[in-house]
């Protein structure tokens, strides 16, 4: 079943936010900071204000509202001080895009550079500049524990068992530290938003967002607008990866519109702005200490995660919380202590990134597991098998793991072992300079979202008996709308081609889907669709019962007909009843059938920040992955030959779609691990804020993808389906590092794995140049 949006996309007919061209739309352009940390001494906008077509110049003085989902610490336009390279310091609003840019170029900003904080470790030093002196006063979300007076935005602890017992039972202890800096999502479509404020105060936003309902809610909250007065439209989104769950361009567009009497204003980020002004991918420094018996049974784990939360918190403390919940990786460890910190630095701030903290924690845990295997001289696969979670174990959140809420990791591991030909896992010398090596990883991920997050679906009939399916899921390229149509078709026992979906989400009419994040589209909207289908079926049978003079319980729906189960000759076409039924004399009963359904995850509750206890998500989905590389041991250049991913899909709903999701995620994980990072100079200025210098994986660079699925159903998922959207990425960085470490003969714990970085590790040189 091809994705329903593909025809529009491949022909260029697909319409994105930035495509809107309308004479009455005005344009906003941002002026951004060239410093990572500086006092703003003054902004001279005299020339800009008088430039042709200019309607307004906005600075931090025009809006005192602080924004942020977990901690309200971020001004929409910097005021008095900038805290990261690329931060917005002014906005020019003009009649045309060119005039807006010319005006922005004319704005002169004077800065006084301040000392910078460029890593979590630096930020924790006692003499580090404190980036948010008012941290204690900021409004915070539930469960956010900050340490005012320091750069610690949030702390969360996860504790199981008794650590002293754990260490006592450990005969071998290893400690391994990993680190990587922030990077970008590099979605194809750069961010864009259009805002208009109508004379009666209604606010209309169009945005490249994956969270239109959150935009509506927060815009209302930040600006005191009744939430019903805000409508947000999300057309097709050209790649999001979590980055477009952050609310930023909408706020700029709103301020710009407000400044010119509510007329519509569009902001379209340049690639550079999309990289450094908009939030990116979180950085991390982590240390994992594992204790195990000689036989490889892990008894104790102390895991310290210091997330690089950048200049503003936004979602980073929530990413840290998600990582905390699954901090042990997919291992049953009796005694463990996880400490998850979110630290302010002068880096661009992060938003969600595909995997939401899990590729990050998995890198830390899996590198430590490999170190333990080395220490124990054990096959790393066998060591993992000895410790991975199975039903009956307890998660770090103290949830009991069951065959439904936990994917089948042993089966994934077995299948991966075969596909990766892991029996030959030792180094192979290809010629004088080249070696081949493999690396493996396994992972789990729970989808921790707000406990009350809901998803809805509306199903309405067309006169020909075909269906319209409306959900709040934004089509970000995952093909979810197609899968939802398949789910509906399956329940309605009709062809998917007869289900029509709409790609634009409009919060004014679409039922709410919390956010199109966390691999929850199929799971939650799928359940809502089933409810809506059942509702529509009930209505169909009820009217058919009347027409066919039969008990509704005796009726069946199939192939767009309703018939008596025991005597199918007594039947009526759906199209005869879906708009009500008209008797031959014109009398009509009923009207258009509209089915509705909503779904909320069961018995969710937030984690206790002191213990980690809670139920932040409904199910742990799992996978096992492997990578094979060929390394030139001289300059340490390498090729990635093969990438294997075996995921428990619960049930594969759309095979090509599922393969596409996994392969795309593998590519993204490898790209992150092998090349993607912001390169900062000593003052924290980003040296590669363009796609010229920020390289992403291209077609042709990809290895052979070997993807397979285990299908152990999740009883809560629609038809047993489990989450898949993020899960091809999570173990890839760890598997690549594992393979390259084996090939290079040295433990590689920093990303990205540039050949120079590997070479430096082999040669014993410092890992501190601007090139890595």
């Amino acid at each position, binding site marked *: 079943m091809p994705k329903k949006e593909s025809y529009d996309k491949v022909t260029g007919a697909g319409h994105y936010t930035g495509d809107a061209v309308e004479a009455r739309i005005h344009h906003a352009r941002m002026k951004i900071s060239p410093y990572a940390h500086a006092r703003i001494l003054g902004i001279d906008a005299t020339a800009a204000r008088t430039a042709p077509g200019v309607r307004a110049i906005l600075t931090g003085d025009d809006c005192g509202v602080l924004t942020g989902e977990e901690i309200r610490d971020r001004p929409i336009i910097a005021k008095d001080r900038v805290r990261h390279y690329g931060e917005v310091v002014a906005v020019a609003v003009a009649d045309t895009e060119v005039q807006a840019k010319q005006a922005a170029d004319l704005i002169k900003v004077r800065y006084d550079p301040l000392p910078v904080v460029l890593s979590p470790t630096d930020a924790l030093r006692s003499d580090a500049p404190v980036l948010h002196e008012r941290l204690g006063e900021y409004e915070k979300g539930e469960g956010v524990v900050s340490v005012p007076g320091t750069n610690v935005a949030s702390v969360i602890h996860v504790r199981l068992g008794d650590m002293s017992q754990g260490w006592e039972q450990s005969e071998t202890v290893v400690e391994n530290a990993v680190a990587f800096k922030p990077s970008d999502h590099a979605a194809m479509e750069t961010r864009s938003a259009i805002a208009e404020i109508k004379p009666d105060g209604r606010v209309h936003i169009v945005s490249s967002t994956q969270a239109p309902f959150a935009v509506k809610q927060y815009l209302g909250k930040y600006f005191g607008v009744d939430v019903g007065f805000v409508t947000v439209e999300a057309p097709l989104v050209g790649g999001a990866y979590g980055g477009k769950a952050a609310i930023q361009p909408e706020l700029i567009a709103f301020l710009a519109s407000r400044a010119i009497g509510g007329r519509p204003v569009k902001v379209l980020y340049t690639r550079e702005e999309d990289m450094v002004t908009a939030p990116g991918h979180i950085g991390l420094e982590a240390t994992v200490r594992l204790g195990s018996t000689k036989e490889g049974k892990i008894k104790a784990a102390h895991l310290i995660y210091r997330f690089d939360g950048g200049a503003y918190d936004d979602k980073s403390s929530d990413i840290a919380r998600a990582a905390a919940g699954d901090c042990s990786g997919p291992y049953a460890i009796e005694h463990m202590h996880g400490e998850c910190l979110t630290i302010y630095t002068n880096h661009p701030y992060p938003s969600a990134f595909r995997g939401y903290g899990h590729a990050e924690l998995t890198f830390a845990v899996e590198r430590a597991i490999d170190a333990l295997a080395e220490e124990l001289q054990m096959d790393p696969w066998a060591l993992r098998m000895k410790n991975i979670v199975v039903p009956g174990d307890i998660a770090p959140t103290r949830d009991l793991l069951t065959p439904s809420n936990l994917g089948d990791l042993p089966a994934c591991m077995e299948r991966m072992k075969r596909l990766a030909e892991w029996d030959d896992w030792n180094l192979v010398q290809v010629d004088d300079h080249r070696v081949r090596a493999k690396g493996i990883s396994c992972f789990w991920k729970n989808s921790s979202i707000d406990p009350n997050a809901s998803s809805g679906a509306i199903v309405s009939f067309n006169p020909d008996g075909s269906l319209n399916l409306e959900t709040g899921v934004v089509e970000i390229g995952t093909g979810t709308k197609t899968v939802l149509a398949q789910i509906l078709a399956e329940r309605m026992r009709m062809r998917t081609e007869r289900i029509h979906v709409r790609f634009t989400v409009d919060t004014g009419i679409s039922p709410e889907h919390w956010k199109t994040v966390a691999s929850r589209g199929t799971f939650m909207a799928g359940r809502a669709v089933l409810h809506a289908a059942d509702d529509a079926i009930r209505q169909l049978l009820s009217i058919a019962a009347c027409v066919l003079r039969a008990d509704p319980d005796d009726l069946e729906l199939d192939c767009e007909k309703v018939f008596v189960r025991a005597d199918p000759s007594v039947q009526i076409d759906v199209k005869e009843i879906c708009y009500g039924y008209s008797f031959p004399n014109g009398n009509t009963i009923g009207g258009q059938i509209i089915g509705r359904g909503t779904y909320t995850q069961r018995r969710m509750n937030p984690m206790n920040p002191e213990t980690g206890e809670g139920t932040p998500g409904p199910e742990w989905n799992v996978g096992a992955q492997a990578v094979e590389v060929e390394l030139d041991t001289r300059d340490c250049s390498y090729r990635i030959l093969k990438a294997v991913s075996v995921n428990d899909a619960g049930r594969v709903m759309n095979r090509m779609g599922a393969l596409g999701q996994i392969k795309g995620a593998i590519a993204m994980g490898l790209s992150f691990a092998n*090349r993607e990072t912001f390169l900062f100079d000593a003052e924290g200025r980003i040296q590669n804020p363009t796609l010229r210098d920020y390289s992403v994986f*291209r077609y042709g660079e990809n290895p052979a993808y070997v993807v397979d699925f285990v299908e152990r159903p999740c009883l809560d998922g629609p038809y047993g389906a489990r989450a898949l959207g993020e899960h091809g990425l999570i173990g890839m960085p760890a598997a690549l590092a594992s393979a390259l470490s084996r090939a290079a003969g040295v433990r590689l714990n920093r990303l990205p794995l540039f050949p120079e970085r590997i070479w430096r590790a082999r040669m014993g040189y410092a890992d501190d140049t601007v090139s890595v």
Partner: protein
Amino acid sequence: MPMIPYPFDYYQPATVGEAVALFVDLDARGKQPLYFSGGTEIITLGRINEVYTEAVIDVKRIPDCREIGRRSGAFVWGAALTLSEIHDARLFPLLGETGAGVADRTSRNKITLGGNVCGRFIYKEAVLPLLLTDSPLRIAGPGGERTAPIGQLFDRTLRLGRGELLVQAMTDVRYAAFPYVTDKRRKGSAIDYPLLTVAAIRAEEGIRLAFSGVCAFPFRSTEMELILNRREVPAEERIATAIARLPAPILNDIKGSALYREYVLKVTLGETLERLEKGVAIG
């Protein structure tokens, strides 16, 4: 989305003479004119205000700038030929393949030989084969036309006078028969600026080598060639001596540290010498 935030005039002359006359006129009127070939650099740097002009003179409709073929024992390369066209013509693989290391195919369908050689970026890899073959360049300018071997014209950059236009390069056809190596090493991606590029041919008198990405400019060093051609000395020693005679410090930037570049240069030179001393042509 590339939006150039300033207006500029566009001219499309039909002859070299017209182009130069236009330049002189526009320059006199303070238009800060630029010759415009593939346009990739003007567009991408223009949108971030790193290039400014009020008039561009597109040379792609000038037949001389588009010439490709053989004339009087030489290949003629019009400066407005795209790197893709030169590659696909397969007349001189060293030039075609070295040019094919620049950017990606889509960009190379626009990037021209003249633009690559005369542009602002420091790598200019297409110049390496011209340096190795000391190809004569035909240059037109307000003072008329001149032709001279590139060795006399190129020193870190092509030394053009104000208003001068690179029209053509000419390469003796006999070079097409020489064994060659062109080897581009990148930081880690299949498409990127060079960590370093080494291009080399084995001519009658010995191996010639030209480099990009090693220093902040492309160069050919006869001094290094002399050292590297002393075949009685072990290769490793020759390479170390040659590297000590580089014309400028090794680049140290986001693509690679000087330390790593030096190491990769050693490896690449070792392989280049090994291949050419064996006499095998390798692309």
